[in-house]
């Protein structure tokens, strides 16, 4: 154990730099997925007929094996190629479903009596969205962000396969030279990152939902 710890300590600069890369990959892709997925989820609540096919499509995309998706994206112009950009696009695609689905479900889960009161009192659709629906759906939307982030942290280790960097670099290198210490040097920080993100975003979620119950 202490041998492993000293191994980590010797490689700390390498590990820290790759962790930073990893965080950037996840942060950028999750942010972009939220920027697209949340408004799209809201829009779907206004277009019930489109909701099923679009959520279904997002679900199907989710089932594409991640390594295969990275492979599919590589030859594409603009978004493809070796490097972080392709990885971010792939991670964005996977982060989209939880964000889309949770935003959609969160808004639809708001008590219809409250939505009707908001309309009946004379709120415009925009006021109703910003004052009532989004604040009340926020805990569910935050849960979507949490799930998307945690999933992305795990998936981003595979991004190293297409040269995007991140903690996956250590794991792939470790596998190639059959060095468990090096695999762990990538896997342990990735797991810790996922736990930290889950704990942090979970705490935010609980704080938001505490005072929202009727």
């Amino acid at each position: 154990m202490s041998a492993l710890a000293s191994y980590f300590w010797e490689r700390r600069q390498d590990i820290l730099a790759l962790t930073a890369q990893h965080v950037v990959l996840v942060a950028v892709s999750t942010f972009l997925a939220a920027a697209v997925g949340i408004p799209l989820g809201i829009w779907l609540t206004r277009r019930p007929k489109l909701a099923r096919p679009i959520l279904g499509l997002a679900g199907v995309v989710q089932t594409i094996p991640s390594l295969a998706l990275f492979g599919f994206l590589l030859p594409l112009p603009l978004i493809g190629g070796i490097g972080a950009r392709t990885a971010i696009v792939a991670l964005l695609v996977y982060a989209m479903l939880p964000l889309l689905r949770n935003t959609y479900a969160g808004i639809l889960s708001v008590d219809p009596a409250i939505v009707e009161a908001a309309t009946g009192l004379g709120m415009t659709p925009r006021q109703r969205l910003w004052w009532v629906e989004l604040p009340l759906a926020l805990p569910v939307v935050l849960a979507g962000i949490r799930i998307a982030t945690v999933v992305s942290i795990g998936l981003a280790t595979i991004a190293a396969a297409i040269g995007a960097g991140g903690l996956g670099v250590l794991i792939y290198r470790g596998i190639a030279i059959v060095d468990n210490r090096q695999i762990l040097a990538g896997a342990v920080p990735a797991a810790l990152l996922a736990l930290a993100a889950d704990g942090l975003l979970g705490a935010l979620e609980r704080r938001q939902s505490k005072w929202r119950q009727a």
Partner: protein
Amino acid sequence: MTGNGAVPAVEFHEVRKAFGGRPVLDGFTLTVEAGETIALIGSSGCGKTTALKLVNRLLDPDGGRVLVQGKDVAAEDPIALRRKLGYVIQEGGIFPHWDVRANVEVVPRMLGWDEERRRRRAAEVLAMVNLPAEEFGPRRPRQLSGGQRQRVGVARALAADPPVLLMDEPFGALDPIARRALQREFLEWKGRLKKAVLLVTHDMREAFLLADRIAVMDRGRLRQIGTRADLVERPADDFVREFVSEAS
């Protein structure tokens, strides 16, 4: 009844409304005079809630006309129309993420009143429903009892001083003691405020207690409208007689 030539608060003229081919209102006609309280009563599915929602355009009629203070609601902007009609629903529909004061101030805020005026008015209406603003204003809805939440709903509806109040089973979800307390308060401020109230209920006792006139509905039509004495002494048909007998 006013009878003084004032414009009626709400009028329904031969209103028809169907959902999925099933008629819910079928030639419904009713006039609510300024300042009077009318109870709309009938068995569930008789169209009473539908009638109420046609007034603030949560629904639009398939045929006939609905007038508020002499003006056809179809010609009015629904948002502006709703802001001048008080609306109270069962279980309040209180916004759970806002404190009591924010709930009560919501319509004045949409109407662009300044903060000072909103505060003053919120304190006034909260006092009217026996929830002193200093004590209850900062509270969250989940810290209130069912009866208190319903009071907030009433205060919110009264905040912008609308001439017409629409109430959809406002006391239906309360326990008998809380319901009686709110009914007593209703009679108190009703006497002072002189508002036209259209109250949907399925409880004939409540209708007798609160309303000046009672409109008995069945299958989308008005069976009889009259005072308590009219309904008790001169019921128009067996349906009305049966409804009245349940309350006595």
